[in-house]
């Protein structure tokens, strides 16, 4: 039977058409989103200013104390290699999702090691990140060793990790 003549297919197509009707949204939703986008844009424009301002101040200070400007160092956050791991002996696939990989379930697969432990190492800038593990493609399991994320845009199964530069430890 051709798909177009299949009653189940015709039924599904008909339901699909009904569900294509537009949905109503709050009238201020666009404004709320764009306000946040502009806030982030302003913040990212200011960041280089702080950086150059800091460099200029450091250079002036170096001159003032009779040092060469070569000794004025620009501080850039170093990437830290962060190890993630999960005990999941029965799992066939474990991946890592979080703020650092846009919650893409395919971006960061873990490798199975001995005794059913899954591991990976991710280079991250110092900062605070939310993340969780995706087990067998669908089950979200948070890292029980770290604090659970609360009150942000996720529910229970995510953890929070704060990366501090090794140089500051």
């Amino acid at each position, binding site marked *: 039977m051709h798909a177009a003549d299949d009653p*189940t297919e015709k*039924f*599904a*197509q*008909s*339901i*699909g058409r*009904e*569900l*294509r*009707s*537009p*949905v*109503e*949204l*709050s009238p201020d*939703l*666009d404004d*709320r*989103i*764009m306000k*946040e*986008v*502009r806030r*982030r*844009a302003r913040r990212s*424009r200011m960041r280089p200013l702080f950086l150059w301002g800091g460099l200029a101040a450091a250079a002036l200070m170096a001159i003032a104390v009779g040092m060469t400007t070569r000794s004025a160092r620009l501080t850039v956050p170093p990437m830290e290699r962060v190890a993630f791991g999960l005990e999941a002996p029965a799992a066939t696939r474990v991946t890592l*999702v979080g703020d650092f990989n*846009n*919650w*893409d*379930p*395919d971006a960061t697969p873990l490798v199975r090691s001995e005794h059913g432990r899954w591991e990976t190492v991710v280079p991250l800038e110092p900062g605070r990140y939310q993340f969780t593990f995706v087990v067998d*493609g*669908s089950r*979200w399991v948070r890292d029980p060793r770290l604090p659970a994320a609360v009150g942000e*845009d*996720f*529910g*229970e*199964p995510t953890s929070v990790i704060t990366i501090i530069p090794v140089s500051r430890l």
Partner: protein
Amino acid sequence: MNDGDALLVTRVLGGDENAYGVLMARYRDRFARYAFRLLGDQGDAEDVLQETFIRGYRFLSQCESPEKFGAWLFRILVNRCHSAYSGRGRKEENLGSSTVADTRPARGYGNDEAWREEIERALEYLPLEQREAFLLKYVEDLSYEEMEELTGMGISALKMRVKRACERLRELLGEVYDARS
């Protein structure tokens, strides 16, 4: 592919955040429809939509193919819908096995709006993965290959989910559908 999207993405990355407003206007209705049909709640759908567009802006430099911006952002939306669903404790799983006819409104289904509401209610009886597969196939009109790329699930598993979703919807809505046809 949409060349217009690529140009707008370049403008946004160059510091023109108003160009992002144009991109948002292109996709908001379609994305809102998907989120609302999947989550069944306007507040949740708006939250997910807001998170999606803000994350899209924040990670725009990671969009490797700007001409496929829409597909890239849709993937973020699908992931955010999963997060929202997980976060609210899977309350849908407790709906049980009653049929939509149990709650049939007195005004009947002759009215298109009432019929659509019944379809939306029936959707809520499907497990998330079946609902998602049905919406991607019959509302978003994606091919199984596109669905595979988007969800990371194999084509045979997706076909099974769509089949089960159709069967369940037919079970819930078939009587009324037949009467309307």
